[in-house]
């Protein structure tokens, strides 16, 4: 078969429109953000801003009153707690549904997916009402049972508010994990269960050494993706707490995760002088952190491919 010979120049000419598009849409904004992060560009200095080097980064990372690390810490905590809950709840529901005695699997699958498919903005507002201290259903029911003094400060106490937004996010997101895990579970051949039983493995041992290793490859990408979306969580939490409860005007609120913090303190409606340079530095720093975490996460996934899990299962 004769090779089609094309001049390099022709190839470049054909690629050029696409490359130009990418440069304009992807590359230019990234470079511009990078540039902005080294200036003092703000609402009021937009006409005469100047280059200030790494000053924005210094303020963000090294100034003593910077909220960056507390906010980052509580965001990471939120990610870890949420994602572990996704995994546990998703695994439990998937194992329950995978039981051959469960009838009407398609029906349950739809029911489980409903919270995930519902618009998160609306469910968030419903949850906000459920958690309301004075008139919310949770506390109203509590008052019927335990008397008029009863009241759980769901959104008023920092720890409880954190737990509240975890509950909501888990409720919204676990169905996705259920479906992913269920799919992986149903791909496990029946012979393995039989072989394990013959070898004398109990239910726990079967789960630990057969099910889990075989499900892991499907879980890794889902876990990484939802860790990133949880890290960047804005609408659900913001609609419920606005980042509060506030414990002091000088400290970030207990549910003020990075995106909410960014909005509240440097971009939001009540901010005096939006400091675009500082926001750009914030965005770049976040990008670096997310990129590093993703790299680490995918690295962990690559070390346990399917083959090795089966080997482990046989061992």
């Amino acid at each position: 078969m004769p090779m089609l010979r094309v001049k390099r120049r022709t190839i470049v000419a054909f690629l050029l429109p696409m490359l130009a598009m990418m440069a304009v849409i992807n590359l230019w904004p990234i470079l511009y953000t990078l540039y902005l992060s080294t200036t003092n560009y703000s609402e009021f200095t937009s006409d005469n801003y100047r280059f200030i080097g790494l000053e924005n980064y210094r303020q963000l990372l090294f100034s003593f009153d910077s909220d960056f690390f507390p906010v980052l810490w509580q965001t990471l905590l939120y990610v870890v707690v949420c994602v572990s809950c996704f995994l546990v709840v998703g695994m439990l529901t998937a194992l329950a549904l995978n039981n051959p005695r469960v009838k009407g699997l398609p029906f349950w699958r739809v029911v489980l997916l409903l919270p995930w498919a519902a618009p998160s903005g609306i469910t968030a507002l419903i949850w906000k009402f459920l958690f309301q201290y004075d008139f919310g259903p949770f506390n109203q029911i509590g008052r019927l049972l335990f008397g008029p003094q009863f009241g759980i400060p769901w959104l008023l106490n920092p720890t409880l508010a954190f737990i509240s937004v975890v509950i909501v996010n888990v409720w919204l997101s676990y169905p996705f994990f259920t479906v992913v895990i269920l799919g992986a579970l149903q791909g496990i051949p029946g012979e393995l269960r039989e072989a394990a039983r013959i070898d004398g493995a109990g239910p726990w041992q079967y789960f630990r050494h057969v099910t889990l290793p075989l499900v892991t490859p499907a879980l890794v990408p889902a876990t990484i993706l939802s860790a990133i979306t949880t890290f960047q969580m804005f609408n659900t939490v913001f609609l419920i707490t606005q980042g509060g409860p506030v414990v002091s005007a000088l400290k970030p609120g207990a549910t003020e995760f990075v995106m909410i913090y960014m909005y509240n303190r440097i971009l939001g409606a009540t901010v005096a002088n939006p400091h675009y340079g500082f926001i750009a530095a914030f965005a770049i720093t976040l990008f670096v952190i997310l990129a590093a975490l993703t790299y680490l996460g995918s690295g962990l996934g690559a070390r346990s491919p399917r083959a090795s899990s089966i080997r482990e299962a046989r061992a």
Partner: protein
Amino acid sequence: MKKIFASRASGSRPLLAMFLFSLMLALLLPACGGAENSGSNNSSSIDFSGTIVIWHGWQGTYLQAKQAIFNEYMRLHPKVKIVLVHQDNIASKAATAVKAGNGPDIIAFTDDNLGSLALGHVVVPLDQYISQDYLNQTYTPAAASALVFNGHVYGVPEAVEAVTLMYNKSLISADQLPKTTDDLLAFEKRYEQAHPGQYGVVWPTEDAYFNAPWFYGFGAQYVTPDGKAHLDTSQALQAMEYIASFRPYLPKQPTYDVVSSLFAEGKAAIIINGPWSYADYSSGGKINIGFATLPIVTATGTPAKPFVGVKSLWMAKTAKNPALVADLMKFYTNKANQITMSRADGEIPANSAAADDPAIQQLPAVAGYAAQVKLGVALPNTPYMSALWTPVQNALTAVWNGTQTPAKALSDAQAAATKGIAQISS
């Protein structure tokens, strides 16, 4: 009447329609022209053509009342098209849009945003077309002063507003109304004992705007025009302690929606709220509302002083035809149109001739708010004010939730506000 005639005629007989239309113009012009220049006079220097885009936050009856005035202007000047665009977060959106050259011609918003918009060159001065003398002669003093920033005129005021005591006449009578701040607290306790599960007086206790009456009544202030926060004063502390003394009696999460529903459902006798809420409570004869001015602060002997917000129209930097914009502004806020607007939507007119008009004075709601406006302080239009809202609100929230003492909350808020102010002036 004239309108029906003209529109019916225009279908079949164009000449007659044109004749009637010019007749109508001739009839209308002397009414709005005259000695004082109140907009849309037949000045030859103005090019009456093109589109004017207005960004606003008006809704419901407000929007209807205002739309009618703009329709009238479009009828007077058929070549002018006025487009009203509703926006949330007007200030920040306008800032972005104007920088990109896609901004509106007029921005309608409350005066506290003027300083930052002017410093950001989002709105521009109109001195050439509207003088300070014109402002002072045409509008009530607080309203006129709100449109001047750094010695320049940026537009016109359309309405003023302030929060006041609104009470449910079927729950309490006028002689039961608390006259002083101590009375108010005592009333709250008494009312709740007598009516379990209900509230005497409610307001959003975590909101910087709604609590300004107490701070300013106790002699404190949020910020001075030169950009100094004043939250760490003993007066501010007294105000904060007074607010905190209501904690045992009010809801734990007294957001605006919560307290407003309580009043609307008859579960609260008094609410501290502003003109925007009146129609919701009174429409359909739901609640018979009475008005009273906010109580006198017992410690200082001065009345509680709410912020007087001045709803304003400013010219954006992207305005294409400044002369036309200025003419529309004057027309929109002339005496006749202000009276029409106020009667339709219950706003308190900024035009002083309209505010003094008997037709306006006899509207109970307008009179009620107008009495309170006289006792208030102008909502500062300095850009530094925008660095105060969040810290004050956070301090109020921390105190209301019981996580901080009033003194600690205020000193933290002072530090946060100082930091915010530094960001503005740097």
